[in-house]
Structures are given as structure tokens and as C-alpha cells.
């Protein structure tokens, strides 16, 4: 019996002694001890490995006792291979030195699983960390990742005020914006001036412009994958940022060994200033009193909690909310007209709400990610106008009529998405990964657009006096029109892809299957990226892929508004499809940085637009908001070009330069007489230069220069004499210019220089503080956003026509100097 117990005890103790936890850290071999996030830690003899977390730590919970070879590697750094003994008395720290030979590749500083996937299209993928924004000039003092994205090669905007971005000839709605894996619609503040993502809460962003992996679908242009921080820094970290526009607070830290949280809040304080300003907007004299009030606010909120059940299992819960609301109301009381009152109220606003739960489970050879999410979007626009007249306003027969006139216009949209997805990463070998997964999303879209106009009145006496007793009001007018849309659909998808390494050749084949319920549409979309490291300095890449999209937003060609209409594909509006091919080179210039050249070609089918009558009649005389019908037309597009990108990321002067030579065309059978026409993003030359100079330990200077060829718009100097009333029915068609070709005119070229001067490492409020002066458009360049023609046409008595040309450019952002403050919170603030 004792022997059995001994054997069992020995077995148990040997079993207990056989495996031990092993933890360590990987940092950069520099004075800052920069943690290396995503470094590979591999035990060749045990055939097991892992990667480091954001603070460079790694852990294994059960490794066999004994001496083992450990290999630490990280892209761009020299690999360390050494021997460790398990168990270890202390957690070892491995310091990696940069490998100058490997600096040609883009650095991976984030979730290796997704990041490795995204890096398949290596030349088309741009990675940005929140730290990179530090020196970037900021509009209104607000650091903004999307604004930075807009300054990258291959990414265009329509104007300084455009909240979206346009990738390689695509549209704004063709970009998949993911916040921790959850799609977000319309994430902008201040009508698109900057995004609703609080930069201080963001950990990293990756934009793939090219052939993005099979994991991503439902869009055809790009994937913007945004990851929030997790608050896992041991001493906590965050920032308080104050700018003239808003204040934001962001902080994250561990609650205990298992749980960490992040919270960030940003809110404008324009509303109290406007409240004060409104007091000055009351005008009163002997004839009338005019009161006007303006109101605007925005806020956004991020919360994220990460709980580690074990080193292998982790649960993330995240919530994002943003809201914008703009109101203007006015009241005019005309005393001369016996207290006639006109009141006017306009409100426009939009909200985003997303929530998700993500469960990650890791085993030595597999990573399983399961996520459920909800997304809500609501846009609410209303204009109400009321005129109460106490005197005659119209003439009927021999009598004046006095009227009460009310008009009410509304436009609301609601989105509700519910999604479920699972992603599996199988680490088949050190160099081979397999990715597979499935996704299901239920979409519900509803919108309603209505206009009501009523007029009630009664006849006054012929002499203009009120009859006594006053007769009951008579309804003179009562019109109501409405248009609504309600659609529910779902998209199901499955994908399989892999990373295959054959020496210096990396292949990333993939296939994605999608089915869309509303049309019974289903498709297989192949994706392939290949990277060949020809020499240690030279890499060649190529890619090809098919893409589909089922959701579209259409509005006016000129500007984006909250009244832009969202559509889902149906039997008449087929899904938009696209094919893209890319080819490029990357060459390492050693200390001078990296240079890449990439050619791309993209074709798009079933693009949507409003028909000409819808655009023309969207604005009606008595209505404030454009009212788009649901009649759309479909067409195709083509975009191609070459992007040149040079990046230098080491040294006291760092930065990048991007140049794009591109063309983008659209063709619709019912637009432009069926002829192809330049897309609004067809700006032939696009140059961005960003330089960041660490002048000293306490001072840094950032400069961003942009040059873009002129925006194409529809404008002409040709005029013709319309037949005003061809049917002789009393109509009067306005005379105007000959506009028969869309986007045939080019505005003057756009160029702008922005500067950011930062005074760092101050100690204010006992905290590390940074003060920065940002100047947008330093030399106050007038960059036109459009040209308005108000050519006056006068007809002389002898029939001669005299035209007075009055063309006016409207400009974009003028010079804007702003000072902002950034205060570090917590010991691990970056």
C-alpha cells in the first residue's frame, strides 16, 4: 500500500514537476527599453510558441522541466537563439537589436494574428500607431487618425471638410471601418471635420488599400481596422487632452492580475460658449424683434474591459458611442404687421452605438476568436417653420386672406446590425499559418422622409379689417408627401486562407464565400497576395482579388450630409462588385529609409448613383433638406495608378513622402449621355510630405505638406439661350450655362502646409505635459472647394442679351492656429 502511494505520489509529483510556467519579456535593445509587441517566442524542440503582448511580456503556463532552446524573433530585428532552464528563478528579459538588413519590411507592432493577415498585402498596408500622431499637425488641436489616413498615398478626400476617405478611385461607403472588429457607420463629428474615434484610446490602426485578406468582406475598397487599447499597462496610462474644440480623457489600467479596463470620453464645450453667444444674437428695434439661437454639441465614449480567465482564455467587452447634434432656431416678431410671428427651427443629428463581446482562446497551435456584436446608427433631421400672420398676406377676389402657414420636413434613418463571427488561426508550423472562419450579420435599415405643409386662413373684410365675429379658419392648403424604406437582410460568409512560406517567397492564397439574402446572391471571391524577398533589400509583391458590397450610401455629388441615403442591394440594385490587381516593389535604402512603388488597377460594376432628376429635384423651394427619392441608376468604374512611398523611421528626422499618379472614371448609361466621366476623386497628382524633427529632448517639429491636382467638377463657361416657355404654358425655365459633360472642369490645384510645434516633457500639475502649437494652412492658401456661377442675364428692350459673369470660388480651411494641451496620466502613459 505504501509502495502504491509512493508510486502514485512520485507520479503525481513527477507530473507536477514535469511542467512549469515560464514567463519573460522581450524589449528593444535601446535606452528606452521599448517593449516589442508581437515578437515570436518559439521552442523548436517543444514545437510550441507564442507571441508577446503589448508590453512585451509573454507567458507559457505549462512547459516541461529541463533545458530548452528558445528562439526570439521579430521582424526587423536580429533573432536571438539561446538556452533557458525551466523552471527559471526569474523571468528573463530578452533584448533584441535592430537588424539593418531587415528594415525594408513594414514593422508589425500589434496583434500578430490579425496583423500578419493584414500584412499579406504588404505594400498596400499602412500601419499607424497612436504614437505616430504625436508630431502630426492637428486640425483644431484634435489629433485625428482618420485625418492622418487621408494624408497617405492612395487615399484621397474631396475637401478639407470631408469626413470620409476615398481609396484608389473608390467611394467613402466602400471602406470597411472596424472598431475592435465591429463595423461602424458614419463615425464623424462636426459634419465630417474629424472622426468620432478618440485617438488617445486607440492602440493601432491598419489600413489595407489593396487586396485585403479573405477574412474581410462586404466592402470593395479598403479595410480600416482600428484596435483600442486594453489598459493592460501595469502602472496605468492615459491622457487628458484639451483643445479649443473639446476636452478628452482617456485612461486604462489593470484592476487585478486578470482584468484591465480602458475608458475614454471626449466632449466638446462649444455649447456653453454658444449659449453665451446666443445672448448677442437678439436684435430688437421699433419694427421687429429677431431672436436666434444656435446649439451644437458632440461627444464620444469608449469603454473596454478585458478579463483573462487563464493565460489561454480571454474575454473582451467593448462599447462605443458617439453623438452629434446641431440646432438652430429663430423667431421674428414684426410689430408693424400687428405682431406677425415667424418661427423657424432646424435640427440635425446622428448617433453611433456599438457593443461587442469577444472570446479569445489560445492553444499552442491554435487561436480561436468568437465575437458577437451589435451596431446602431440613427440620423435625425427636422425643419419646422411656422408663420402666424395677423394681416393680409394673399389676395383672393376682392379680399385679403390672413393665413397661418406651417411646414414640417423630417428625415430619419435607423440602422441596426447584429453580428456573430468566429475566426480560427492554426499555427501549422513556424512559417505556415491557416486562417478560417465564418461570419453572419443581420441588417435592419429603416428610413422615412416626409414633408407636410398646411395653410389655414380666413377672409378679411374688403377694407382689410377683421370680420367680427371672426369666422372659423378655412383650410387653404394641406399637402403631405412621404417616402419610406424598411429592409431586413442578412449576410453569411465563410473563408479559408493561409500563409505559405517557401524560402524567400510568401504566398497568401484565400477564398471567401458570401451569400446575401435579399437577392439570393452568392459568390466565391478569390484573394491572392504574393511577396518575394528577392534580395535582403528588394521585395516584389503582387496581389489579385474579387470583392462584393451590398450596402451603399448616395447623396449629392458635392458634399456628404446627414441626409445622404443608405441603400441595400435588391433585385433592382445589384451588389457592387470589384476586381483589383496590384504589383509593386519595395527597396530598403538602409538608413535613408524604405521606398515602395505600387501599381494598381481596379474595376467596379453596379456602382449606384441617383438619376439626374433625383439630384436636380432633391432640393425643393419650400424644403430645407435635400429629399432623395429611391430611384437609382447603376454604372461602372475604373481606377488605376501608381503610388510611390518613401518612409524613414529612424533618426532625429523621420517622416514619409507619398506621390500618387492616378486616374478614376465612372460610366452610367443615364448620366453624361452614357459617356464615361472623371470621378470626383480623379485628382491626377497627389503628393504628401510629412517630416518630423526631434529638435531636442523637449522640442519637436512636425510639418505636413499636401499638393493635389484640381478637383473635377461640372462647370462650363459656355452659355446658351434656353427656350424659356417652349410649350407656351407660362413656365419659365431659368437660363444658364451649357453643362453637358460631368466633371469636365478642374478647380485650381490644392496645396497646403501644416505645422505642429510641440513642447514636451514639461512638468505641469505634477504630470508630464505637452503643449503644442498647430497651424493649419500656414501660408493661408485659398483652396477652392467649388465654383458658383451667378452670371446675371439682362435682356435689353431691343432684344440684346447682356451677361455679367459672376463666378465665385468658395474656399476651404484658411489659416488656423490652435494651441492644445496633453497631460499624461499614469506611470505607463506612452
Amino acid at each position, binding site marked *: 500500500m505504501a509502495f502504491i502511494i509512493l508510486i502514485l505520489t512520485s507520479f503525481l509529483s513527477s507530473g507536477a514537476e514535469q511542467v512549469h510556467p515560464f514567463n519573460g519579456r522581450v524589449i528593444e535593445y535601446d535606452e528606452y527599453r521599448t517593449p516589442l509587441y508581437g515578437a515570436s517566442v518559439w521552442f523548436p524542440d517543444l514545437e510550441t510558441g507564442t507571441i508577446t503582448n503589448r508590453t512585451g511580456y509573454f507567458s507559457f503556463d505549462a512547459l516541461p522541466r529541463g533545458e530548452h532552446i528558445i528562439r526570439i524573433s521579430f521582424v526587423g530585428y536580429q533573432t536571438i537563439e539561446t538556452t533557458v532552464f525551466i523552471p527559471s528563478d526569474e523571468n528573463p528579459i530578452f533584448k533584441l537589436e535592430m537588424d539593418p538588413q531587415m528594415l525594408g519590411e513594414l514593422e508589425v507592432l500589434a496583434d500578430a494574428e490579425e496583423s500578419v493577415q493584414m500584412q499579406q498585402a504588404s505594400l498596400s498596408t499602412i500601419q499607424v500607431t497612436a504614437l505616430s500622431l504625436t508630431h502630426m499637425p492637428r486640425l483644431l488641436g484634435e489629433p485625428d487618425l482618420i485625418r492622418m489616413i487621408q494624408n497617405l498615398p492612395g487615399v484621397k478626400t474631396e475637401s478639407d471638410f470631408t469626413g470620409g476617405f476615398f481609396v484608389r478611385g473608390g467611394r467613402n461607403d466602400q471602406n470597411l471601418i472596424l472598431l475592435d472588429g465591429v463595423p461602424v457607420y458614419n463615425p464623424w463629428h462636426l459634419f465630417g471635420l474629424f472622426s468620432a474615434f478618440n485617438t488617445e484610446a486607440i492602440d493601432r490602426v491598419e489600413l489595407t488599400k489593396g487586396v485585403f485578406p479573405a477574412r474581410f468582406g462586404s466592402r470593395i475598397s479598403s479595410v480600416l481596422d482600428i484596435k483600442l487599447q486594453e489598459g493592460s499597462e501595469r502602472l496605468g496610462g492615459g491622457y487628458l487632452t484639451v483643445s479649443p474644440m473639446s476636452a478628452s480623457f482617456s485612461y486604462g489600467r489593470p484592476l487585478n492580475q486578470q482584468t484591465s479596463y480602458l475608458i475614454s470620453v471626449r466632449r466638446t464645450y462649444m455649447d456653453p460658449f454658444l449659449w453665451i453667444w446666443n445672448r448677442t444674437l437678439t436684435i430688437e428695434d421699433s419694427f421687429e424683434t429677431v431672436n436666434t439661437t444656435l446649439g451644437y454639441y458632440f461627444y464620444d465614449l469608449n469603454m473596454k474591459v478585458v478579463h483573462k480567465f487563464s493565460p489561454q482564455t480571454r474575454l473582451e467587452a467593448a462599447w462605443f458611442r458617439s453623438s452629434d447634434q446641431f440646432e438652430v432656431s429663430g423667431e421674428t416678431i414684426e410689430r408693424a404687421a400687428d405682431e406677425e410671428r415667424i418661427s423657424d427651427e432646424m435640427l440635425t443629428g446622428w448617433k453611433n452605438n456599438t457593443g461587442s463581446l469577444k472570446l479569445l482562446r489560445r492553444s499552442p497551435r491554435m487561436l480561436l476568436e468568437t465575437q458577437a456584436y451589435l451596431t446602431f446608427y440613427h440620423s435625425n433631421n427636422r425643419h419646422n417653420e411656422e408663420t402666424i400672420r395677423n394681416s393680409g398676406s394673399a389676395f383672393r*377676389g*376682392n379680399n385679403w386672406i390672413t393665413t397661418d402657414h406651417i411646414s414640417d420636413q423630417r428625415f430619419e434613418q435607423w440602422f441596426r446590425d447584429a453580428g456573430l463571427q468566429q475566426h480560427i488561426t492554426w499555427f501549422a508550423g513556424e512559417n505556415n499559418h491557416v486562417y478560417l472562419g465564418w461570419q453572419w450579420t443581420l441588417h435592419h435599415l429603416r428610413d422615412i422622409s416626409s414633408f407636410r405643409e398646411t395653410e389655414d386662413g380666413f377672409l378679411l373684410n374688403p377694407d382689410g379689417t377683421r370680420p367680427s365675429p371672426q369666422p372659423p379658419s378655412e383650410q387653404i392648403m394641406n*399637402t403631405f*408627401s412621404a417616402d419610406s424604406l424598411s429592409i431586413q437582410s442578412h449576410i453569411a460568409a465563410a473563408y479559408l486562407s493561409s500563409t505559405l512560406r517557401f524560402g524567400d517567397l510568401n504566398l497568401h492564397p484565400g477564398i471567401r464565400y458570401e451569400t446575401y439574402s435579399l437577392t439570393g446572391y452568392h459568390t466565391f471571391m478569390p484573394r491572392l497576395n504574393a511577396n518575394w524577398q528577392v534580395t535582403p533589400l528588394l521585395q516584389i509583391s503582387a496581389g489579385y482579388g474579387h470583392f462584393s458590397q451590398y450596402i451603399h450610401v448616395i447623396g449629392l*455629388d*458635392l458634399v456628404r450630409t446627414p441626409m445622404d441615403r443608405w441603400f441595400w442591394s435588391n433585385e433592382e440594385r445589384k451588389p457592387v462588385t470589384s476586381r483589383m490587381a496590384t504589383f509593386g516593389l519595395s527597396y530598403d535604402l538602409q538608413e535613408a529609409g524604405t521606398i515602395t512603388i505600387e501599381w494598381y488597377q481596379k474595376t467596379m460594376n453596379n456602382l449606384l448613383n441617383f438619376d*439626374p*432628376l433625383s*439630384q*436636380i*429635384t*432633391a432640393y425643393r423651394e419650400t424644403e430645407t433638406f*435635400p429629399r432623395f427619392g429611391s430611384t437609382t441608376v447603376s454604372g461602372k468604374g475604373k481606377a488605376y495608378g501608381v503610388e510611390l512611398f518613401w518612409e524613414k523611421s529612424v533618426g532625429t528626422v523621420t517622416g514619409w513622402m507619398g506621390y500618387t499618379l492616378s486616374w478614376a472614371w465612372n460610366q452610367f448609361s443615364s448620366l453624361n*449621355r452614357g459617356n464615361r466621366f472623371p470621378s470626383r476623386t480623379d485628382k491626377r497628382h497627389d503628393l504628401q510630405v510629412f517630416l518630423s524633427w526631434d529638435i531636442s529632448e523637449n522640442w519637436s517639429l512636425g510639418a505636413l505638406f499636401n499638393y493635389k491636382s484640381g478637383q473635377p*467638377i*461640372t462647370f*462650363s*463657361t*459656355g*452659355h*446658351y*439661350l434656353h*427656350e424659356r416657355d*417652349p*410649350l407656351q*404654358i*407660362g*413656365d419659365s*425655365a*431659368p437660363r*444658364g*450655362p*451649357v*453643362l*453637358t459633360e*460631368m466633371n469636365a*472642369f478642374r478647380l485650381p490645384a490644392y496645396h497646403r502646409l501644416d505645422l505642429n510645434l510641440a513642447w514636451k516633457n514639461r512638468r505641469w500639475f505634477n504630470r508630464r505635459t505637452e503643449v503644442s502649437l498647430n497651424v493649419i494652412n500656414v501660408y*493661408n492658401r*485659398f483652396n*477652392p472647394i*467649388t*465654383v*458658383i*456661377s451667378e*452670371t446675371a442675364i439682362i435682356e435689353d428692350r431691343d*432684344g*440684346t*442679351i*447682356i*451677361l*455679367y*459673369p*459672376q*463666378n*465665385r*470660388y*468658395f*474656399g476651404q480651411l*484658411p*489659416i488656423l492656429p490652435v494651441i492644445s494641451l496633453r497631460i499624461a496620466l499614469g506611470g505607463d502613459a506612452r
Partner: protein
Amino acid sequence: MKFNKLKIISYILFIFCGYILLISCEMTADIQVDHEPVLQVDAVFYNDKPMPVIEIKRSFQVTGRSPVVVDPESLMVNGANVTLKLNGNLISVREIEPGRYLPITDLQPSMGDRIHIEVNWYGNVVSAEARIPDYPVEDVEVTPETNAYYSHSALGHWVYPLSVNIRIPFLPELTSIQTISDKEKKLYKNAGFNPNSVCGCPWEYQTFFKENPRGNSLSVKQPIWVKIPTDDISEDPPTAFLTVPFSITIIIPEPIYNEYIRTRYDEIGAITVTNVDGGVGLFMGALRYVRNLRVDVEVK
């Protein structure tokens, strides 16, 4: 003193910044882009009228900031080579005045007919096709009321508005309707008024767009004015039984007219509506239907 200086400097800076911001928003544009003139072709073909004169003009350039004086006659295009076809059959065309081309034919278009034109002027070629809309206009129901009440007096007449109910059992893109009594027509023609002028008068054409009504038919009520001359004896409007001849005219143009009349050029809507391929102008057909009726009415 120091504080005052600082204050003054602040005000100056504030005004300077405000000025910079203001001048940065808008700027007069001196645009010198050349415009290659295009041909303009205008004509309206009715089903109840002979072939109209076709006007052919050209566009012109307005650049810079200086006024541009244009003599409309100088824009007329003469000597153009015009090919006209009615339902595929060639029709001769003669230039009767510079830029005005008359089809030489006794043929009158009917509902559903197609008219095709091609104009060639020094290598500048444009073409267009018009079609007379085809609708069962005989099915239009016209029901005038039989009582009219005094409203006012004007131009030596007692005026009694009489409502006429019109139901059109189909729904074109645009329908224009005029109701007018024969007496009004005569009266105002003699006085030199244009019955088609815009004057807030009841005989004005009323235009209805497809999107306004509900359903698949158009029901409207339009007034005609029944008039009785005033005399020096009676001070009150009389009561009488009258027979009032009147007419209704319905004009239904091709759908392109709907877009044409609603085009407004500004920074938002930006395209010229035309059906002339390679040029501008409106070369279209229109259905015109006139019904003459008489109604016995009691005016009170």
C-alpha cells in the same frame, strides 16, 4: 500702460485674424477656360398642329469678368444641313430665315409619331428624336358644376367663379391644364392680354407633376370665370341662368420636359437637361388636347 498696449495688440490681432478668415472663404473667380460652341436645336411637335419651325442656334462663351453682349440673332445658325424624318420618312426642310428651318410638308404629326433630326454644320453634328405622347385623352372626364356664386367685380363685370372637375384616367410625368371660357378669351384678347401670360388669373395653365397626386389618375378642380357685364342701374350682382361655352386644353409633353423645367443650375444641381445628342436644346413632342363644352349654370 503696458496692459493697454497689450489690449490694443490683442484687438488688432483679433481683427486681423477675423479679416483673414473672412477673405479666405470666398473669392471672385476669373475663369478663362475656352468653350467650344455646341449646336442648339429647339422645336415642339404637337399632334394637332402643322410641323413647327425648327430653330437652330449655337452656344457662346462667357469668360473673365467683363460683361458679354450677345445679339440673339447672331447666334442663329444658317446654312446648316438638316435631315428630318417623320416615322422614318424623309421630310424636306427649307431655311426661311437665318437659323429657322421650316419642314416642307402637309403632313401633321399624330399621337405616337416619331420625328428624328440630324443637323450638320461645318462638321459639327448633332441629332435628336421627338415623340408625340400617346394617351387615351378621349377618356378624360370633364364635369363642370352648375352653380356659381358671386365673388367680385372687375373690369366692368360681375364675376362668378365656376368650378370644373377634371379627371384624367392616366398619369403622365407632367400635365398642364387650362380652363377658360370663350368670353374670357375674347375679352382679354381684345384688351391685349396674353391668355398664356403669368398673371395669377384663373385661365393660367396649371401644371401637375406625377409625384403630386396619389393613385394612377389625376383629379383636379379648376375655375372658370362666368362674367356678366355690370350696368348703371343695378348695384347688386344679379342672379341668372346662363349657358357658358368654355374649353379645356390639356398639354402633355414628353417626360424630358419635366426635368427641363425643374433644372436649376447652382452648386448642387449641375447638368443641362437636353435630348439633343452632342448639343443642347429641346426637340420634343407634346400631346395637345382641346375639348370645347357648354354648361348651363345658375349664377347667384
